[in-house]
């Protein structure tokens, strides 16, 4: 195909490499300063499936750097506007727009459908969410972030390599790092950094060596200087990583925890033959392969009570540890005394299983 002839003549890519690109599935989170240039090169290069998730709409102040969009896109959702422009750029691939916010409830299912996640977000909460869900779903993340004239690029969770939390274990205090909207950014900078992110995607898909895993590339547009700082995997961060209580709780799922006993995943796994009861809906991700596991959605507990043995220690869990509190309260109302809600929910179990492996 002449569209990709300049790739195919490269001995390092060839038809074989181009075929790899055409079967790759890449999800770009955020179609902003970083996401737009990354998307343009990913789509032009023939990445087979490109997903775009963004809840925001195109504003005039975006056009100084998000050159995927024109004035005709103003007021339109970014994922949808990007899809429409990109389909003209390359109609031979599959482009999917998700015009909503990435939250933990949709992230798991979404990530499962892709091979590589590109982080083009502009807030720490989503960055840590992307990191944590990518560990659970075992997807590499191509990270980019900018500040005025400087950019950072790295690849996390690549072939079991270090993650964002190995580099920056804790999210900074709220409001301590300003956003581009407050402090400004040189228009070309996200263009450069977003292209570097696209480049890392190609390196991963094409199995090139020297992917930026365990390495943070810093680029300064004013001095044209760049440096690469290496960092290691921190096993201790993995456990914290997967315990959402640590930093960003899901505000919408918070509720009172009175008189319900809480147990940590590490304590639960030390118990003698406990029963793990999953009170999430059927089909919620991540799914677990666990011994002594019973799956009863919260609203069915009373109907399926016979499956819960009162002589055992019952560990109830859900996604984050809120529905499981309600489940414990139901069981206590039915006379069960030996019930706990699992702190951190399913993520804490997965973290514990990974530590034990």
């Amino acid at each position, binding site marked *: 195909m002449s569209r990709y002839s300049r790739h195919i003549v490269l001995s390092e890519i060839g038809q074989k490499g181009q075929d790899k690109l055409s079967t790759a599935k890449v999800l770009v989170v955020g179609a902003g300063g970083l996401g737009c240039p990354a998307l343009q090169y990913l789509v032009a290069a023939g990445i087979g499936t490109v997903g775009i998730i963004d809840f925001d709409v195109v504003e005039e102040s975006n056009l100084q750097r998000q050159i995927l969009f024109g004035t005709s896109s103003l007021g339109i959702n970014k994922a949808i506007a990007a899809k429409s422009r990109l389909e003209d750029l390359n109609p031979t691939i599959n482009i999917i727009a998700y015009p909503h916010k990435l939250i933990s409830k949709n992230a798991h299912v979404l990530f499962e459908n892709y091979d590589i996640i590109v982080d*083009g977000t502009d807030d720490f909460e989503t960055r840590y969410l992307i990191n944590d869900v990518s560990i659970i779903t075992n997807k590499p993340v191509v990270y980019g972030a900018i*500040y005025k004239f400087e950019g950072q690029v790295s690849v996390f969770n690549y072939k079991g390599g270090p993650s964002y939390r190995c580099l920056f274990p804790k999210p900074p205090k709220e409001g*301590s790092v300003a956003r581009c909207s407050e402090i400004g950014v040189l228009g070309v900078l996200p263009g450069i950094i977003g292209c570097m992110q696209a480049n890392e995607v190609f390196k991963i898909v094409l199995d090139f060596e020297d992917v930026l895993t365990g390495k943070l590339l810093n680029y300064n547009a004013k001095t044209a200087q760049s440096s690469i*700082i*290496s*960092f290691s995997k921190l096993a201790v961060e993995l456990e914290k990583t997967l315990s959402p209580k640590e930093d960003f709780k899901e505000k919408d799922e918070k509720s009172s925890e009175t008189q319900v006993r809480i147990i940590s995943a590490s304590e639960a796994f030390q118990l003698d033959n406990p029963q793990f009861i999953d009170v999430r809906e059927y089909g919620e991700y991540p799914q677990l392969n666990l011994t002594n596991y019973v799956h009863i959605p919260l609203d069915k507990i009373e109907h399926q009570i016979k499956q819960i043995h009162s002589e055992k220690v019952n560990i109830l869990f859900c996604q984050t540890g809120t529905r499981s509190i309600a489940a414990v309260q139901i069981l206590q109302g039915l006379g069960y005394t030996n019930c706990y809600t699992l702190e951190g929910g399913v993520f804490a179990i997965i973290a514990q299983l990974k530590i034990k492996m």
Partner: protein
Amino acid sequence: MNLKIKYFGLLAEITKCNEETLEFSKTSMSDLLEMLFEKYPSLKEKDFQVAQNLEIVSKETILSKSEIALLPPFSGG
């Protein structure tokens, strides 16, 4: 020992330079940070990681190499 210290992002705005060379006689990273916090009090409020000779290290590390970097997380996109 002569230390070359590099500052990134908003830290460079606090120190008003991208890098500087300092004469330092103590041996640990925490001593160095204490000295920098005295020199630039606003640094103390900021989140950052430290690198020694292009490698992220803990803030308790013993200083062995002459190039230090202070790296804050960036959020912009």
